[in-house]
């Protein structure tokens, strides 16, 4: 029933295109530059031929590898811990009385909505006050505070969709609460659990601002990248940025695919 307005359509298309280019051109440039380095020969700019040299240098860089390892450990531990916490919060929310549930809703969400710099600063002060030395553990705690809301949201939506009658049916058939959780609730929530963890993983892997405050001697990959930029630009940075880009894109696509079939089966 839509009326044809070719001029407006074309204009909208153009604006969208410009937006996409503005968003993605720098990313493409970084990826391209990681393979084709810029050369300056006697003041004249030019491109070097295709090379994987920055990637090789990256792999040889022990500090970067150590930062990558830290990032992976933090992301895995933080996202799994967040999943457990988020599940507990969600179960509490669906069974709690309205007032308590609402209060918890706000409390879980606040750290995500607060400026990360405030969250980071508060955590830093708190850790100092209780004399908890900064390190891997404090980074993980910082990330959990920030990503629990995201996982909680994903998990809660699915849990509310499930409704109470499956739980009741399971109990009615003689199952205990634990059996109901293991055989009925968690399997039905599997897509939400996986996409929640992936989302948490992606956010944790990229998190910079809070980490800046709570990190000790171990640094994560984004912090390392930040530090490298301050010292001076090296080609490895392009390679590293490209790798992170690809990695995040893969996770995003995976989440998208999971959310397209929310129940696993049509229900």
């Amino acid at each position, binding site marked *: 029933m839509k009326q044809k307005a070719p001029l407006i359509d074309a204009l909208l298309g153009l604006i969208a295109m410009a937006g996409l280019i503005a968003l993605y051109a720098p990313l493409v440039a970084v990826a391209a530059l990681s393979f084709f380095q810029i050369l300056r020969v006697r003041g004249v700019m030019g491109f070097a031929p295709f090379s994987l040299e920055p990637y090789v240098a990256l792999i040889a860089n022990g500090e970067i590898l150590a930062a990558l390892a830290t990032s992976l450990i933090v992301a895995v531990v933080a996202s799994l811990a967040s999943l457990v916490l988020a599940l507990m919060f969600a179960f509490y929310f669906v069974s709690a009385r309205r007032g308590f549930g609402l209060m918890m809703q706000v409390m879980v969400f606040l750290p995500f909505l607060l400026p990360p710099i405030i969250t980071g600063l508060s955590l830093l002060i708190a850790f100092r006050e209780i004399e908890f030395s900064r390190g891997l553990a404090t980074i993980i705690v910082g990330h959990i505070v920030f990503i629990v809301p995201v996982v909680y949201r994903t998990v809660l939506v699915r849990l509310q969709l499930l409704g109470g009658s499956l739980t009741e049916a399971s109990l009615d*058939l003689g*199952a*205990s609460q634990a059996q109901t959780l293991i055989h009925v609730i968690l399997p039905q929530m599997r897509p939400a659990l996986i996409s929640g963890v992936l989302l948490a993983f992606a956010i944790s892997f990229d998190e910079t601002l809070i980490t800046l405050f709570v990190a000790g001697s171990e640094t994560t990959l984004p912090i390392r990248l930040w530090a490298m930029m301050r010292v001076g630009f090296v080609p490895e940075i392009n390679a590293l940025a490209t790798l992170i880009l690809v990695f995040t894109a893969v996770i995003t696509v995976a989440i998208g695919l999971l959310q397209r079939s929310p129940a696993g089966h049509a229900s």
Partner: protein
Amino acid sequence: MRVQPLLHLENISKRYGSVRVLDGIDITVADNEFLTILGPSGSGKTTILRIIGGFEGIDGGRLMFEGRDLASVPINRRPFNTVFQDYALFHHMNVAENVGYGLKVRGRPKAEIAAKVADVLETVGLGALGARYPAQLSGGQRQRVALARAIICEPRLILLDEPLSALDVELRAQMQRFLKSLQRRLGIAFVFITHDQEEAIALSDRIIVVHRGRIEQEGAPEQLYRRPRTPFTAAFLGENNLIPGTLTSAEGAVCQVETAAGRLQATVDGPVPSPGSPVLLAVRPEHITLTANPAPGALLAEVAEIRFLGANILIELRHPALPDTLLKVRRLADGGTTGLRIGQSLAIGWAAADAALLAAS
């Protein structure tokens, strides 16, 4: 009835906040019985079922199973199973896994589960569908899976929460026959919830009519149909013509009622109200006789509408003294009433035994 019923709800009351949803509910369920709790939506019938199943607590009264108080028995320890209105099948399990779930959580050996699942699936007529997932089944098939899942643990009682309401008319009739025959074969008590009075009459050994959280009346379907005791039962179970009046005298069960249309006769079931009290006279449309040549003193009414309904003809008549009441009369379509016309004056009557006397509320 046995001295000790299988299940006894004693004076149960239930509140949601300040709203009283059940009040003084007293129900017994006998072994092997097909008991239907019938009521309109919001009557509290589903709450009664959920209390038996253990999904809801009670605010007063007792729930006794074979003389044992069930108050402290949680859902998963009650010897009942439920067929839910939305079936509540586990969508990540196939049919066989759904049906075998009750045995699996009880830790029975795999071979025993497989054998019983095959057996029960055969019973409900789904023998070949064990490997299918619920999403691959029709509504009627899902219904049977829900039934199979409920009967596999051999409960003493099955609770059915409007299980046929999601099915289309034809499938519903088929499932009604199936449910009835299944209940006879298994020999376990069914407590069936419905708002559909025809369904209740067709299936039940006994019906309990619930209205606004109270029991209106209970009895065998025929008894309820022929001898409703309250205006609600009279109007909810099938069609009834209700004529208000005052009781003047009674001889045994046959009462004389003074109405705006004159003195009419009705039969009372149970205690006779005291003379002078307001009553309602209930006559089924199929029990009213029509005569074209009235005897002197007959009750005359004018034909207001004639509706052809296939097998039946419904004739609506108006009596000048009862301006608010259209009297409905039902006739078989081949019963020779085709000569009727609108505006015609006819004598109406009924046997005293066919008119029920109700206390007006």
